[in-house]
């Protein structure tokens, strides 16, 4: 019974048309491009390698390779001929020094192994700027940058230093004869010895000038301070003693006025005796400071100016001529009354680059008699003078400048009018750039004077009036370099060594009889009498107009106008002013706010994005894409990718400086766009127009879920009021499970599946993280990178969520006005009517969208070292196991890469090595570079492809501490145990120690009411504690 039915796929087939027949014959509709793959016939025939030869070669090389594998390599070891006394192979030495690169100033300790600096740590002996931020932590890698200039260059040809000095001296003398100017254009050195050297130079060459140029200028603040206090500097602020902090567009937890204020701020943020500081932030971009604020008011820059003027009138007095929207006026009035109440404990700061704004703030703080405000010991780490720079450019174009000597600056990249500068540079008879890199300016100069890294240099710095730091080399110069000061000595005809020069100067003028060696050992020195070493070498702008009180506020209010969108330029925690752009650690460092790396972007508010039809989308892989926007400032056009930023004030946009460099950078590091082109008049605030541009940009963003979705057990938080008045069970309840129909706390042993292992003997390590003290600065991320040889994977891999950071700082936005409102919303969901008004499905969808002005929370997450670890039970080869000391061990050589552990980890802290990052040329970062490899920590394994890795709680450091104690035969004191992250945290947010030592800080923190564990309901019993975030919010 055969069927007569005929099946056909299309009408054509039924009709038996010719096309069907043709297609039947062709298996592939499109022709397979075999030629492309094999090459054309002619080439094939021309080749002398036959197929048989090819197979022979393959067979032979395979056999040879496998034979060679059986033979162990012969390893040569070369000991010293004469071993230096201080170096014992395998034992680290620490040296105190100071970084002063013109943007970052900090006293640091440098860890060296076998003479190689491998890590930067905080200098706890230093009273000022003893904390290293993310960039300073990463700066050690800059030493091993393979693109450094290796010898002095004349044009493109390497020359010797003797040629360099004789030629330049000759030209300097010629310039002197010609009566033209000799100008030093330098970064802020704040160095007593450099100032003295330049003044000595001026004695020899009377027509010499010194112009200080900061790429990111604080000139307005400096001018305001100078007018008021007759001294060029920046007021010092101690936020640890302030009870009410009000900031107008000042990211004082970031790089505002030189940075370094975060550790003081954090001290005041930990609730003590029911009190903590209150922080109110008025700003347009979402900054670190804004993210940490108790109350954040998003305002466009012009509104900020008005609000500041208003606040001035409310506190200092005087009329306010301007109109503020009612709700903002209300906020300002509330702020003023809070400041009033705080009295001397209140403080106001601003980051608006406007002399009037800065003056207004100084006046308010004077009026408040703020204790946190100290104009007597001004900060000296910013000395740039915009007007002097502008005059210089004009002089250069006019041909008045005969010789231009630049050090630590890259004006051709950082100046908005770089073309004017380039034009002027051509008019000079002599141009010298002291630079570590063949950057834009160095390439355009006649001579590149190869400069050493700060870890190879001598020097001194006065960070704050009377607070000095010493710079000492920690390694011999890797290349044929000379620092600016050494060459100055040569030009001055002085044949002492620069180190001796510093020593003599310090002994005679700074140390007041104290020991130089002690100061060198400590890395810092505080002068008791704080003698005035005023830098009189710098060209000061003479046209300071005395402004009577109140006039500044009026001028500020009238200047607050805007046309269209307002752009605020800012610096990112990871990139700063861009001088470390060739540092892969910093490129891969995710921005604390946007969690995006390898890029800068225009931050736009959701409302503006909707209006301008700018979108952010996720690809199927989870990678983030964003539209391009074209922005125009005074006719300068720039196309930038867009990120929609919750909390961005509507009508304002933000863009980070420091990106878009190309000269002297590896191709991978040439990321982003150069925002300095928009930095006109050294003003971070610009009026711009934004239009949508074609195309989508691919971002490398490591966090896709931006909101907590009401899961209050991940970040527990409460308000100061509830914290002070209620029991722990109200705001930090331990989750419960049902046992025999009774609610039992999940931490109690009877509901546990596992038998508890007794850890009461020996050490039991715990890491405590205080969410109140953590500002999200990310110093710990880079410190972990350096300590644990974490590879850099590059933008493409980050897009595939293959980032390798052992320690990440999650950032969450609230979906409603606050996280508490999120929780309330979630609790109110109706489980049945999914899409109804209270429906859970639609409701959760809403919770995914961050609020326009969200609360923000930072949470550092690393391996939680669970005592009942889910990863350990699923490893088929027992590569991960638990130690008695509480650490979750990972034996890389045992791991076979099944990745079960990562899948079973509730915290997503395990990282898989997809590639041999240290041996694959596709990853041209520090680990694939003979020079870059010098930074690798020899105590930690460099992991191979195909294995899991994760935070080890720095077991190499705890083991070393234990061994040292064993060798000395002593008991370990509290504070000796440290991890890389805890020792990098200058804010005191991370505390590490032994909880079996009942007197230790971390053991006491474990008993603290604010303590909770991440996802406690899972029952993993982690060894990382978190401390509930308390916000000082007011109803």
């Amino acid at each position, binding site marked *: 019974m055969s069927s007569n039915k005929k099946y056909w796929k299309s009408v054509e087939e039924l009709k038996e048309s010719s096309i069907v027949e043709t297609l039947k014959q062709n298996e592939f509709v499109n022709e397979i491009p075999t030629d492309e793959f094999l090459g054309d016939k002619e080439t094939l025939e021309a080749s002398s390698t036959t197929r048989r030869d090819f197979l022979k070669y393959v067979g032979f090389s395979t056999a040879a390779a496998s034979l060679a594998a059986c033979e162990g390599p012969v390893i040569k070891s070369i000991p010293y*001929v004469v071993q230096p006394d201080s170096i014992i*192979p395998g034992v680290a030495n620490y040296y105190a020094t100071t970084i002063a690169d013109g943007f970052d100033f900090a006293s640091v300790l440098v860890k060296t192994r076998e003479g190689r600096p491998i890590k930067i740590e905080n200098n706890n002996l230093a009273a000022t700027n003893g904390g290293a931020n993310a960039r300073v932590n990463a700066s050690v890698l800059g030493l091993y940058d393979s693109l450094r200039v290796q010898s002095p260059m004349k044009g493109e040809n390497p020359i010797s230093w003797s040629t360099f000095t004789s030629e330049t001296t000759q030209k300097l003398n010629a310039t002197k004869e010609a009566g033209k100017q000799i100008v030093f254009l330098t970064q802020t050195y704040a160095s007593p010895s450099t100032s003295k050297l330049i003044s000595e130079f001026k004695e020899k060459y009377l027509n010499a000038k010194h112009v200080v140029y900061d790429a990111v200028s604080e000139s307005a603040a400096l001018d305001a301070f100078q007018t008021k206090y007759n001294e060029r500097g920046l007021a010092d602020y101690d936020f640890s003693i302030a009870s009410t902090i009000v900031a107008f567009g000042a990211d004082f937890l970031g790089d505002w006025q030189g940075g370094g204020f975060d550790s003081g701020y954090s001290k005041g943020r930990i609730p003590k005796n029911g009190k903590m500081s209150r922080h109110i932030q008025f700003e347009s971009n979402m900054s670190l400071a804004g993210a940490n604020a108790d109350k954040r008011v998003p305002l466009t820059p012009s509104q900020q100016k008005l609000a500041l003027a208003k606040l001035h009138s409310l506190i200092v007095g005087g009329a306010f001529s301007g109109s503020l929207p009612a709700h903002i006026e209300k906020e300002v009035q509330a702020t003023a009354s809070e400041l009033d109440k705080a009295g001397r404990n209140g403080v106001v700061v601003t980051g608006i680059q406007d002399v009037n704004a800065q003056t207004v703030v100084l006046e308010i703080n004077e009026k408040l008699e703020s204790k946190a405000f100290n104009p007597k010991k001004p900060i000296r780490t910013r000395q740039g003078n915009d007007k002097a720079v502008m005059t210089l450019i004009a002089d250069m174009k006019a041909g008045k400048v005969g010789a231009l000597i630049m050090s630590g600056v890259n004006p051709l990249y950082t100046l908005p009018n770089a073309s004017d500068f380039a034009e002027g540079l051509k008019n000079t008879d002599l141009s010298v750039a002291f630079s570590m890199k063949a950057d834009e300016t160095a390439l355009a100069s006649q001579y590149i004077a190869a400069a050493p890294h700060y870890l190879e240099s001598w020097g001194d710095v006065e960070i704050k009036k009377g607070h000095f730091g010493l710079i000492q080399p920690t390694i011999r110069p890797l290349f044929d370099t000379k620092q600016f000061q050494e060459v100055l000595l040569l030009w001055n005809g002085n044949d002492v060594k620069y180190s001796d020069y510093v020593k003599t100067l310090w002994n005679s003028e700074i140390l007041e009889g104290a020991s130089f060696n002690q100061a060198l050992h400590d890395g810092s020195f505080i002068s008791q009498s704080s003698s005035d070493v005023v830098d009189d070498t710098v060209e000061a702008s003479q046209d300071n107009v005395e402004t009577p009180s109140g006039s500044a506020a009026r001028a500020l209010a009238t200047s607050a106008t805007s046309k269209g969108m307002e752009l605020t330029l800012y610096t990112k925690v990871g990139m700063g002013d861009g001088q470390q752009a060739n540092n892969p650690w910093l490129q891969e460092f995710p921005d604390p706010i946007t969690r995006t790396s390898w890029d800068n972007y225009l931050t736009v508010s959701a409302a503006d994005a909707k209006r301008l039809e700018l979108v952010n989308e996720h690809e199927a892989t989870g990678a983030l894409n964003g539209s391009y926007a074209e922005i125009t400032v005074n006719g300068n056009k720039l196309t930038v990718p867009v990120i929609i930023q919750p909390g961005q004030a509507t009508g304002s946009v933000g863009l980070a400086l420091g990106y878009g460099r190309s000269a002297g950078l590896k191709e991978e590091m040439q990321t982003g766009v150069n925002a300095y082109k928009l930095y006109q008049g050294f003003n971070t605030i610009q009026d711009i127009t934004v239009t949508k541009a074609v195309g989508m940009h691919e971002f490398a963003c490591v966090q896709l879920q931006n909101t907590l979705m009401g899961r209050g057990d991940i970040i527990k938080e409460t308000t100061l009021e509830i914290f002070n008045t209620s029991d722990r069970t109200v705001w930090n309840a331990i989750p419960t499970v049902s046992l025999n129909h009774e609610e039992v706390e999940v931490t109690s042993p009877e509901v546990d599946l596992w038998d508890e292992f007794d850890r009461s003997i020996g050490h039991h390590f715990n890491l405590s993280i205080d969410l109140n003290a953590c500002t999200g600065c990310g110093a710990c991320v880079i410190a972990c990178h350096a300590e644990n040889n974490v590879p850099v994977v590059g933008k493409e891999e980050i897009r595939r969520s293959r980032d390798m950071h052992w320690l990440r700082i999650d950032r969450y936005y609230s979906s409603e006005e606050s996280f508490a409102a999120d929780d309330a919303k979630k609790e109110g969901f109706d489980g049945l009517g999914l899409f109804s008004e209270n429906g859970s499905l639609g409701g959760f969808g809403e919770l995914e969208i961050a609020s326009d002005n969200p609360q923000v929370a930072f949470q550092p997450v690393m391996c939680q070292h669970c005592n009942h670890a889910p990863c350990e039970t699923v490893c088929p080869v027992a590569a991960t196991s638990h130690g008695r000391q509480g650490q979750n061990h990972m034996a890389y050589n045992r791991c076979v890469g099944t990745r079960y552990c990562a899948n079973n980890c509730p915290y997503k802290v395990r990282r898989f090595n997809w590639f041999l990052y240290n041996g694959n040329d596709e990853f041209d970062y520090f680990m694939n570079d003979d020079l870059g490899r010098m930074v690798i920590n020899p105590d930690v394994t460099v992991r191979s492809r195909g294995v899991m890795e994760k935070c080890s709680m720095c077991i190499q450091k705890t083991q070393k501490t234990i061994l040292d104690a064993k060798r000395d035969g002593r008991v370990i004191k509290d504070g000796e145990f440290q991890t890389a992250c805890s020792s990098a945290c200058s804010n005191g947010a991370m505390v590490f120690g032994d909880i079996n030592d009942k007197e230790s800080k971390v053991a006491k923190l474990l008993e603290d009411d604010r303590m909770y564990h991440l996802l406690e309901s899972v029952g993993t019993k982690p060894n990382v504690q978190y401390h509930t975030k308390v916000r000082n919010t007011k109803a």
Partner: protein
Amino acid sequence: MKKSYQSLEVNSINNMKKVIHRKLGINILHLGLVFLLTFSTALSAQEGDPVNGKAIFNANCAACHKLDKKMTGPALRNVEQRLADSEGLDREWLYAWIKNSAGMIKSGDAYANKIYNEYGGTAMNAFPQLSNTDIDDILAYTGAEPPAPVKEEVVDDRSNPESDTSSNGLILGALALLFALLAGALYLVNKTLRSFAEVKGVELVDQPKRKPLWKAFVENQFLILVTAILFLLASAYFVYGYFMQVGVNQGYEPVQEIHYSHRIHAGDNGIDCKYCHSSARVSKHSGIPSLNVCMNCHKSIYEVAEGTQAEGLAEYGVDYNAEIKKLYKAVGWDDVEQKYTGETSPVKWTRIHNLPDFAYFNHSQHVSVAGVECQTCHGPVEEMEVMYQYSPLTMGWCINCHRETNVKVKDNEYYTKIHEELSKKYGVEQLTAAQMGGLECGKCHY
């Protein structure tokens, strides 16, 4: 050298015990020798006892002076005569110089200052404890004629073994011939017997052909199966054994750039391991000694004793003195001028003990804290002419030791509390390294 002395002494003591009357003869001999020597030297130098002088010289002067070679100080052969001839200085000057050279330099003595400057501004140690008689003795010793160089009678040791092998060959050849003759004889006998049998008409019964053994074996499937299994098991055993030794370099004994004999340094001379490998006490690395450590001794030890040199040539085929010259070249030491040239060529040693990168090992933990002898892991280094890897350095080997070794807790305050609590918990008197946590993965792998 030292070792041979020791054995000599032991022998003589044994002899003394056994045949006590011999002692008399030896004593007489000794006496005679002393008498002869005193007599002869008394003739050559008017005063001073060269035998005593030699002892004093070796105790006080030899660290910086040699008789015929410039070292830290000048060569001292015939120093008195030389000074008298060239500088016109007498013995009184020498007394004063030896007792307080610094004082003489200060006082502005011309020759004293000349010598001081010639030797790089380093003053000679003062020897106020030496009496004039002692100095007389020393000068007597320095004034003695150098012993006539003993003609080296090099015995060609190598000819002996060669003749041995040739005689062996001869014997073997003779034996082979004998066997061949025997086999031939047997064949002839057999043939003769057969021919006899044929002649006599005796029927030689051919035995029925049995199935050959191999055929029977091949046809028995059970046997084949068993053999195959056995064969597979055996090969698996050997393959496993082969793979397990890949990367295990036990017995690795590479030839080094400079032939350094641990036997002489650590064995014969009894130098403590940690004198050279000093970082083993404080660091994870034991450290290959830098060359300046070698020069601490080899600045004055520019050649080995004759016996040692001969032993080296004969037994190991090594010219020790040439090896010392290699050291001088590497460190840039000019032995003639007694100064550093500054031209160094660091030694590229071939590393013998090498743990994989993923295993963390710390010497100081074992050497300083646990007090483990170096020989426990490195074997009898003091007997090794050429250093080799004694232990397998495998993880199993590490773990066995950690299981068996007790933690050394005595007088170590760090362990007091933890040991008290842990030993109570485990109910043992002494905790092993394993019980202390020495088997946890993360202790060595991170």
